[in-house]
């Protein structure tokens, strides 16, 4: 659903411009505030809505099939590792709060720096193994699967 920006909340910081995957959040030259320049290339992915520090961006369902009067709002918190949603129906009969985790680790802390990893041996380079394999495939003593280990072969032609 295309995004739009509330005039009184936007300060033109550009976080939405920076994150939009479709390159459609731009800063208006006159108002110096953000706006959606191409609603029909908007995927309603909410990346800009989540990135806005002022809650200035919202979504209004596509004019060709979504009636007015609904609301889906979101607050994403990397510190707390959660995302909170609120869905309100047009007829007011449904008003839901939903909460979900976004990570299980302190934000940005758990990905490895492979430059510092133990360098691969020539044997590993010559094998079919990827980083951390075979251990990370099965967490047991088993090796990587091959046709031989699984009793398989390739045959040309029709097979169902």
């Amino acid at each position, binding site marked *: *659903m295309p995004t739009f920006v509330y005039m009184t909340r936007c300060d033109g910081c550009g976080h939405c411009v920076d*994150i939009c*995957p*479709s*390159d459609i959040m731009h800063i208006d030259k006159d108002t110096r505030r953000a706006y959606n320049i191409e609603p029909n290339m908007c*995927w*309603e*992915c*909410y990346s800009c809505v989540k990135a806005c520090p002022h809650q200035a961006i919202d*979504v209004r*369902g*596509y*004019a*060709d*099939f*979504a009636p*007015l009067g*609904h*609301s*889906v709002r*979101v607050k*994403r918190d*990397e510190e707390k590792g959660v995302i909170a*949603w609120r*869905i*309100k*129906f047009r007829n007011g*009969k*449904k008003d839901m709060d*939903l909460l*979900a*985790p*976004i990570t*299980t680790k302190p*934000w940005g802390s*758990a990905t*490895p720096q*492979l*430059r510092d990893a133990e360098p*691969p041996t020539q044997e590993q380079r010559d094998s*079919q193994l*990827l*980083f*951390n*394999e*075979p251990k*990370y*495939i099965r967490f*047991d003593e088993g090796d*990587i*699967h091959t*046709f031989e280990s*699984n009793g*398989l*072969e*390739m*045959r*040309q*032609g029709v097979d*169902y």
Partner: protein
Amino acid sequence: MKFDTIVEEDIDILVCGAGLGGTGAAFEARYWGQDKKIVIAEKANIDRSGAVAQGLYAINCYMGTRFGENNPEDHVRYARIDLMGMVREDLLFDMARHVDSTVHQFEEWGLPLMRNPKTGTYQREGRWQIMIHGESYKPIVADAAKKSADKVFNRICVTHLLMDDAKENRVAGAVGFNVRTGNYHVFKSKAVIVAAGGASNIYKPRSVGEGAGRVWYAPWSSGSAYGLLIGAGAKMTQMENRIVLARFKDGYGPVGAYFLHLKTYTQNGLGEEYESRWWPSLQEIVGKEYLDPELSHRTHRPIPTCLRNHAFIQEVNAGRGPIHMVTMEAFQDPHLEEIGWHNFLGMTVGQAVLWAATDVDPKYENPELTTSEPYVMGSHATGCGAWCSGPEDLSPPEYYWGYNRMTTVEGLFGAGDAVGGTPHAFSSGSFTEGRLAAKAACRYIDDGKADGIKVSEEQINRRKEEIYKPMETYRVFRNEITAGSVNPNYINPRQALDRLQKLMDEYVGGVTVNYMTNEKLLNIGLKKLKTLQEDLEKIAADNIHELLRAWEVKHRTMTSESVIQHTLFRKETRWPGYYYRGDFLKVDDANWHVLTVSRRDPETGEYTMEKAPCYHLVEVDKDKDKESAVA
């Protein structure tokens, strides 16, 4: 219009496009190439780019070998059955034997994978799917890629690959422009991994106006995986295998969790089960080998996605629509109801917005489904992409030329949507393919295969002129008219996209013709596409954003041409429900149990088509028993 030229020299591995495939490639490349220079060029911002930008609520490809659930060959058979036999089983097996290690790492990086409280295993949604809280899936994997890469260039629209001027058919890097500054970027690299996206928006969408952005697959997936590879002369495979999705109407919200986990089901407008009534006539088209409802019922052998689409389409055409998803039973359970909503919020927020806007509460009303316009991609239930080498220990001779996931252009690798014949990879499988390509690319360089690359100034300057031509066209002709968008000298990117979508829809089996086409229609479509290509030489862009859209529509058009050529070549209806060749309305195993392979000559634009053999995985012993039984 003065833009700087910024040259990045001495790159070892350049990753074009940093969705799940590209992040996997950059991440793994650092391990096998700890001293190598790894650079990412991404059209958007790596933290929210690619098809997983808004998140996912499931990882659709996980074997669970750790928990004794599946072996790689089980997944190969599943993909083979679903795609009516047309897959690269070496590549599929290879992806499947590594994919679990990818998923286990995701969990270690902080991606919340749900656990089954009773068994301690990951919470299964279906046989291959596990459920996750994946709103931040993309930023988490992006973090890993950023740590591995020497440099990440965000907002670079890569338009062309650079070719080696010293040795024919060898890649030498890529060029593009920055969609913010407009600057021209040249990346000189020993190896290139194309991990860009497949194509949305090449067929006219069902939605109109504003809603045209509500496509199933991301609107920024501009077919650049194919535009770049085809442009470089790489061979492509299975480009006719476009996909049509049965999804919640208008919002295109996912149905996987609904079918598999919530146990919802479909019925027609009269409240009847409708699929089985179409099986007998469909069996006449595809044969009992591909559709055996009794066997499927007995053994849980899946009925191919396209065939279920076929029943859907036929039922609607018979006047018994709409097709409903029966949610009213499952949603009485508050826990399942919550999952139903979370499922959308985690990956297709727009569907939640639509139901809120239209007061559709699935607890009290069964929502409508629809079949989408076609999409061209290679990681969901379809396998368009480049013809790539498999790994040395698995691939038969026709599928092997030295480096895993290398295309037919030397030093040019693929991952995710870029690799053909590997459906059902999804997010985790695409990341895994990126890892495989990265290891192979490091090896390619270490073997000295990239030595002596030369890129001439002529090539760099020629591409630069070509890239900015739409802005020049605008500058020259804009003031010939008073105002507005109607100009006899040029078309703008939106006008070009509209024309492409209309011709693909009407001649190449889009929604308005019920996915039907034939040789005559395809040839007309091809002719119209050729004139569109001529007009694309006159496309005009009045700013950098429009220049981005101009290059996207060029990539989409290149992709579309390939789709038409492949659809013309395969003279059968292999996937009823994805598309129909009205002049060959049957599966024809005698002639077409093969993979289609094409090459577009970069110099002349001429296409050559060939058939490649289809190899299937079989059990060694069972096979011998059969032979002895025959003897």
